């Protein structure tokens, strides 16, 4: 197989030209406008906009909640991927397709239903609230929603790797006297680490930018449950000079997501090799 390097097939100019124009107009132009606005500010102004106490609280919450949720997603994702690949049981196919639901379900629906489920009269809240666990309109709610959105990434990155694990290594480990746990810990887990980290990074990236579902569940209280994307929106809606401030915060978030994209690309290359 392989690509033909002399351009034998027709359509090179047309397809590449269209691709470049399309990406430029839809991606580079808007994001360029965002960066240009931020660069147009002088440094002191920029710092004053992105480093207010309210903004710092919002970054801390956005990053903190994404990291915690992605860690939980990694454990849940490994569990579900393992069960789906290794075990036969009734309902396996259904479980497998349900993993994709958080992807297909609009985030607004997820936000709506989670905000209701954990409230005092909700199905889960009626048990949790008497125990003192108030998950509605709290930071906990943000983490729960981000786990819902993030765990499919881990399942779908780890699943094919578990599938491709070599049975021989496990047999060898067993024959050499390893217990099942030792085999998992020293033989299987190291092979899964690259994909687990990739899934984790994907979940963090998605969680960092998530807005639709969190608007519903968090209550959006400044300093408490306000995430960075929400702060951008509220600054934008205030209008006037605040738009520039919104842009500055957006640039910080954009820089974070683009660095994560680079990291994820590296990780994916690594986990393909490993």
């Amino acid at each position, binding site marked *: 197989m392989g690509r033909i390097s002399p351009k034998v097939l027709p359509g090179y100019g047309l397809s590449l030209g269209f691709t470049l124009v399309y990406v430029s107009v839809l991606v580079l132009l808007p994001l360029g406008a965002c960066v240009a606005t931020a660069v147009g500010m002088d440094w002191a102004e920029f710092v004053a906009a992105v480093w207010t106490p309210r903004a710092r609280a919002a970054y801390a919450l956005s990053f903190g909640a994404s990291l915690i949720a992605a860690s939980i997603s990694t454990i849940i994702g490994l569990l579900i991927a393992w069960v789906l690949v290794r075990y036969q049981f009734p309902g396996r196919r259904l479980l497998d397709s349900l993993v994709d639901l958080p992807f297909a379900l609009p985030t607004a629906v997820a936000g709506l239903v989670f905000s209701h489920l954990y409230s005092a009269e909700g199905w889960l809240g009626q048990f949790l609230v008497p125990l003192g666990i108030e998950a509605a309109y709290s930071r906990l709610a943000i983490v729960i929603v981000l786990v819902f959105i993030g765990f499919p990434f881990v399942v779908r990155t780890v699943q094919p790797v578990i599938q491709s694990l070599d049975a021989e290594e*496990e047999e060898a480990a067993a024959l050499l006297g390893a217990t099942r746990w030792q085999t998992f810990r020293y033989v299987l887990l190291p092979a899964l680490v690259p994909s687990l980290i990739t899934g984790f990074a994907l979940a963090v990236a998605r969680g960092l930018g998530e*807005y639709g579902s969190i608007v519903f569940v968090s209550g959006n209280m400044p300093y408490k449950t306000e995430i960075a994307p929400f702060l951008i929106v509220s600054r934008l809606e205030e209008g006037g000079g605040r738009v520039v401030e919104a842009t500055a915060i957006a640039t910080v978030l954009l820089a974070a997501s683009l660095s994560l994209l680079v990291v994820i690309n590296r990780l994916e290359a690594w986990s393909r090799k490993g």
Partner: protein
Amino acid sequence: MADALSGQNSQRVVEHVQIARSRELGIDPLVLSGKRPLSTMGRRYTQDPLWLRIVLISLAAIVMGVLVVIPVINVFYEALRDGIVAYGRAIVGDPETRYSIVLTLTVAPLAVLCNVIFGIAAAWAVARFRFPGRTLVVTLIDVPLSVSPVVAGLAFVLLFGMQGFLGPWLRKQGIDILFTVPALILATTFVTLPYVARELIPVMEAIGPDEELAALSLGASGWQIFWRVTLPNIKWGLLYGIILCNARAMGEFGAVSVVSGRIPGETTTMPLQVEVLFQDFNSPAAFALASVLTLLAGVTLVLKGWVERHHAVTPHLTDQEGTDEQTQPTPKMSGSTVTV
């Protein structure tokens, strides 16, 4: 060249026969071709004990139950709480809700159409030619996946707003984009841009250019090659990309919310209308509309499963390039995973 080709073909034939035999015997084809050891004791040692299997399966079921199943059931429970009549009235009785359904069913297909054309062009350019900056193009296609939808929406505001880069000039030409339906389409297209391209590029790379080159040497024109050779080969991958792209397009919230200005009956799509109803404390209506979106998500999953089965099954039943798919499973339709 000819030798290499016939060598490849005989290899294919051997593999094909092996697969056929393994079906007859009910043995894993990889075992028969010697790629996986036929171990009699392996199973015992590599299988977890029964109690552990039961514990892990139950844990997975509980997690999925709390995280996915209960919320979905709850959507329908809350939606139908006041009875089917109230449910119907909540969906079709309110003109703004009705409008939001129509708007979503307009915006999403248009965004998908744009990205289908783009995806095919990008896959053709990236999978069929080498050129400097190819990796950069592939990375650029991925950018919308990692950018927060809110940042995307803001970027369009900065471009088309009254204080924006293009806004004032467009205003002079009598064109308003921000807070109109075209802005919704633009924002949705941005967010869903990678889905079709990311499905098609690996599919086209796996298929390779051989058939297209053959068609070319037989005198087919570029468009003939595309319609008669390429499109039939990539149709399942394309369909898969369309399903994923459409699901995301219908559910998009953040980017659309920023550029819409939330004008009721004009720029509120279904997800935005859910928020409007929620903020009006009209919870039953919000859940009713959410249940429609949930049903659409269910349809997406069913279609997705159908395409996955088809894509996995058809090739080696209908022969021809079948063996390729067997030995090297087509880049697994990874859409939902890495794509989102």
